[in-house]
């Protein structure tokens, strides 16, 4: 939207460089702080804004269609499991929203070794891992042996 970085808040930690899906947050060699090198390849995904420990990154709507004076600020708190938004209109009106982001502790998903290894029969079956139990129905449906269903 592109994103931009406040000079006085950025400490050059590089979290935004590490996370940006478009590879457009880079460290400026002179100032040792981050900036958006390619605003026209920014999707406004806010991944860097959410990740910045210093809250140094903000967004100014695309110059070709967004008038100035607005802001959409975010605070993502993984440990609390929430995300909070503050929207400010050009004319000053504000709106606030808070949503949950996860219901389980981060890192709690189990690995394959926590589950029994597959049997030979399971390899030739059409069932995927955790099926049919995870389907919550008796058996995986098939079109085999059916005339036009």
């Amino acid at each position: 939207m592109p994103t931009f970085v406040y000079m006085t808040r950025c400490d050059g930690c590089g979290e935004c460089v590490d996370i940006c899906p478009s590879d457009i947050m880079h460290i400026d060699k002179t100032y040792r702080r981050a900036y958006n090198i390619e605003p026209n390849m920014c999707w406004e995904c806010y991944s860097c804004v959410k990740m910045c420990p210093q809250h140094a990154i903000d967004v100014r709507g695309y110059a070709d269609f967004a008038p100035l004076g607005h802001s959409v600020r975010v605070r993502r708190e993984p440990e609390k499991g929430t995300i909070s938004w503050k929207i400010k209109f050009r004319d000053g009106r504000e709106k606030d929203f808070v949503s949950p982001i996860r219901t389980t502790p981060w890192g709690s998903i189990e690995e394959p070794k926590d589950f029994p290894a597959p049997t030979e029969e399971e390899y030739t079956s059409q069932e995927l891992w955790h099926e049919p139990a995870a389907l919550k129905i008796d058996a995986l449906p098939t079109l085999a042996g059916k005339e036009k269903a």
Partner: protein
Amino acid sequence: MGWFNTRETITVDADVLVIGGGFSGCGAAYEAGHWGRDMKVVVVEKANIERSGAVAQGLYAINCYMGMHWGENQPEDHVRYARNDLMGLVREDLGYDIARHVDATVHKFDEWGLPMMRDPETGRYQREGKWQIMIHGESYKPIIAEAAQKSADETYNRIMVTHLLTDKKNSNRIAGAVGFSVRSGDFYVFRAKAVVITAGGASHIFRPRAVGEGMGRTWYAPWSSASAYGLPIPVGAKMTQMENRIVLARFKDGYGPVGAYFLHLKTYTKNAYDEEYESKWYDDTKAMVGDYIDREPVPTCLRNHAMLREMQAGRGPIYMETREAFQDPHKEQVGWENFLGMTIGQAVVWASQNIDPKERMSELTTSEPYVMGSHATCSGAWTSGPDDYAPADYRWGYNRMMTVEGLFAAGDACGGTAHKFSSGSFTEGRVAGKAAINYIRDLGETPQVDNAEVEKLKTTVYQPMELYQVGRNEIVAGTVSPTYISPLQGLQRLEKIMDEYCGGIATQYMTNEPMLDRGLELLGMLHEDLDCIGAEDLHQLQRTWELHHRVWASESVTHHTKFREETRWPGYYYRGDHPKLDDGDWHVFTLGRYNPDSEDWEMEKAPVHHLIDD
């Protein structure tokens, strides 16, 4: 000799290599890790898997969920729905396969910690529409990436994969891939027994409506660089339905989603004069497509068609009427959170233009075209179907295996299976992941990469940096060089060609054979000029190879569009020389293959088998 020869080469051996860590790639890694306990599963991703792919920003709904255990829908129903929406042409074997597995995937997402909204009365997942359930999905991608990384043996972030490698003895068998680190600049050689392509579909092959900074606010992510097609096409994989591009009716400029607005909030569209307009175009549409206009729900392309006709008649802008719905505080909250959860830019547009949907309507528009296989269209690789019921025409190997041995597809890469969205793409990745393990278990001799080819590719991959170094010294300063063009200059030429000749916004989605022939001629010259892209640094080198993938995809799209001599999907594109739908000759799939030996594009038809009744 260039300085690029000093780049270190890092070789990674894997059993299964998953290229692209988006939703389908995460699904493939998750599943392969279970079935391949004694095998090595490697994921390679050009960004950071925690926030990569089309769902990096989050989602507010899961658009593919049957609810079989509640008796809500059966897989057959979903096949009928997707077939209807795509004007009759989907791979029903593959679509059924996704639909029968997808509930298990979604139940795992719930268990892993994705916040699902629930109907307060029934306790079931909150339905947005017949197929959609509502979620608080800001962290959808990090949660799914956590599961994938728990299953994969290794994940390589910031590696741009540029080319696939085939077996030294059998050029129609996969042996790995090469690419480079966007951070260190090292050259990576992945040697693998099976490769699953789960890279992204194509944004930015057609010129976008935005004119400046807003170019990045495409509907599909700007990092969806058509690698799903640009990797398999050059090694000769057969593609299908590449002409089946999608145009989205969305909120203007921000491209905010409309699904929840139509389905859950019950907002509706009207023209600038406060009139309903879709019914006005019924006869016009019927003359083009016949009975397809009478199907329920009305196919998405035909609703686009009515909107386009109404705007062409001078009665735009088209508006979404939000004022009634937004008086309800719950609906107002859902309306805003819908954007914040998946298209934050739309909230920015509304805030900047003082648009409070409670007080005023918001403009809709039709987007530039995109080419993809996971949303409501089905471009992608032609793959083998499920073992238990796929017709013989659709079965030559393992489930989701392309026409190249050992090369698998899921998500945007897999053709014929529209309407899979996030959950279906992850599910299709799982199907491909298990199939890839079974392929390896049956495999005799391990494929061998050709080391001479690898060395040649190493030179090719870094050539744009060499070219820039040399060419830059010819000129004083600036961006105009007689020796090279920048990746962005190349991209803009591509977008202009596709826009003007292949049915973009410039011609209101119209094309014909002479336009397509001229487009192909210009694309051919652009393809030659790809040898003259100058890359200033590693970031620009990534952009260079993304452009290569986009150009390969665009050539395929243009050949397919030329081959299909009908207008199958009015509202997505029009063939002026064949303005009607033609079920007599074209109720078929288009198959296209680039022949790496002859360098020709070979086109053919394949039958559409209807496995499910009406």
